[in-house]
């Protein structure tokens, strides 16, 4: 508690200093390399003492997605994952450029964009600790139909606070539960 108090006090002091430097930068009309350098230094210091969200992003033209973590699945046909629950409920694949130690997935309805199942993903060798990791996940017994499978670089409990890192349509057939229309 005492440590937190001193840290807050320190950050408060830095913020005051930063404000003063911003005034100096303003007075120099942004042309003083000296004051800009000081502004950046103190800014960096403040940032290092505050918790920042690393956020997430979607892929775009001329821009990549997040700095990390591509998901490749082993058995995709026409960009859809086909699961025949009468023969196999496992999905296998590879995560490359891995950084996170935890991954999870969610199954949702395409039309309503609602999630109805979440679970963690496990590395084949037990731990996500290498740059490239193979993994397996189990599709639960659910209704037949077309759904969306989303991947997260966090555990299943934290999905709501994160953006998915990948998604793919999934078609589930031969379930013992009645069909669903999407």
């Amino acid at each position, binding site marked *: 508690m005492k440590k937190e108090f001193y840290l807050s006090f320190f950050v408060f002091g830095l913020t005051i200093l930063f404000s003063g430097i911003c005034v100096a*930068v303003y007075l120099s009309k942004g042309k003083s390399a000296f004051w800009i350098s000081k502004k*950046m230094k103190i800014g960096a210091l403040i940032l290092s003492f505050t918790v920042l969200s690393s956020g997430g992003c979607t892929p775009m033209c001329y*821009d990549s997605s997040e*700095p990390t973590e591509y998901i490749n699945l082993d058995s995709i046909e026409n*960009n*859809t994952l086909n699961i025949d629950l009468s023969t196999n409920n496992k999905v296998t694949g590879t995560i490359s450029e891995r950084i996170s130690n935890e991954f999870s997935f969610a199954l949702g309805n395409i039309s309503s964009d609602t999630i109805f199942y979440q679970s963690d993903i496990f590395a084949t060798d037990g731990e996500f600790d290498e740059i*490239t990791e193979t993994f397996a996940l189990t599709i639960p017994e659910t209704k037949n139909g077309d759904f969306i499978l989303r991947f997260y670089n966090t555990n299943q409990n934290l999905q709501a606070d994160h953006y998915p890192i990948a998604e793919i349509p999934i078609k589930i057939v031969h379930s013992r539960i009645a069909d669903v229309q999407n």
Partner: protein
Amino acid sequence: MSKIKLPLVAFEITSICNLRCRYCYNYWNAPTINTFLHFNSYKQSIKTLKKLFSVADVGHMTFTGGEPFMAERFVETVLYARMKKKSVTIITNGTRSNENSYRQLVEIGVQMFELPIHSYLSDVHDRMTNLNGSHGKVLETIRILSQLDVHIVAVVVLTKINANHIADTLLFIKQLGITRIMLNRFNIGGRGIDNNEELQLSEEELQTAFKSASETALQQKITVSSNVCTPICILNPNDYRGISFTFCSADVKNRPLTLELNGNLRFCNHSPVVLGNIFTDKLELILNNDKTKLWEGIPEYCVDCQVFERCRGGCRAASEQMNLSAKTVDPIIHFLKIQREAQQTNFKQ
């Protein structure tokens, strides 16, 4: 009132650039644009970002341009975004800044830099960027950034000029210590409209280059992604397992919405169509207006396609760049058809 959640916004901080890349997609470089006023202002940058952050909960900011390092007080603008708790990527041509600025940006937590390396041959790279010495400068920038231990992504724009040695280029990039590469096919727009004939690959050339890149990526363990949406009937991801393909989201909020300095918001950085202005229009209305809804439609060419939901007709922003509707399939379909017909005619003759 709760803010609208936007995973990513690309901020075109300036339209000014020191290069004249033959393939440049920036719509203000299109041959039909004659009256565009180039923009560059720190004061306006902060004003626009302030407005954006007041109406939207933005996760990630990508600073682009133009050349962002030519923007007035660029590093300070990035600091502003970082202090608003946004993660940041910078798309730069790598020829305009210095070690001090890169260091400052890394110190404030910029996560990733994206730089072009179009070829292992300097003359090929320079020909594409239209600036002699640009290859050497970008290599120097990569050397600096590597020492600063930041994520670097190399961007290769695949054209007729550099496609025949793509495998060697990927190996060269790997030797520079970069293991993430964006392999983007030339996508018509901007200045590229005038240079289409010189740059546009035939279907066979495109597929051969992607095949070569895919095999190299698998052998060399390089992460290669294709980030320009391409119709699946042209490039089927199943045929290139070494390359990750991305496609445009149907959900406008998951698009790489692109913000101009004056507050104009566009669908993505390739689209020239302004959906609205965040200073004058409500964001919710911008994201649900008629121009936005046009993207939900199915192009006539794709009506019977089984994989449309995934592919969505390729890059329809490129259609807009060609003054076509966003409901028109990617113009690459049209170009490749013309090339095929021309080849058949030559064969008959």
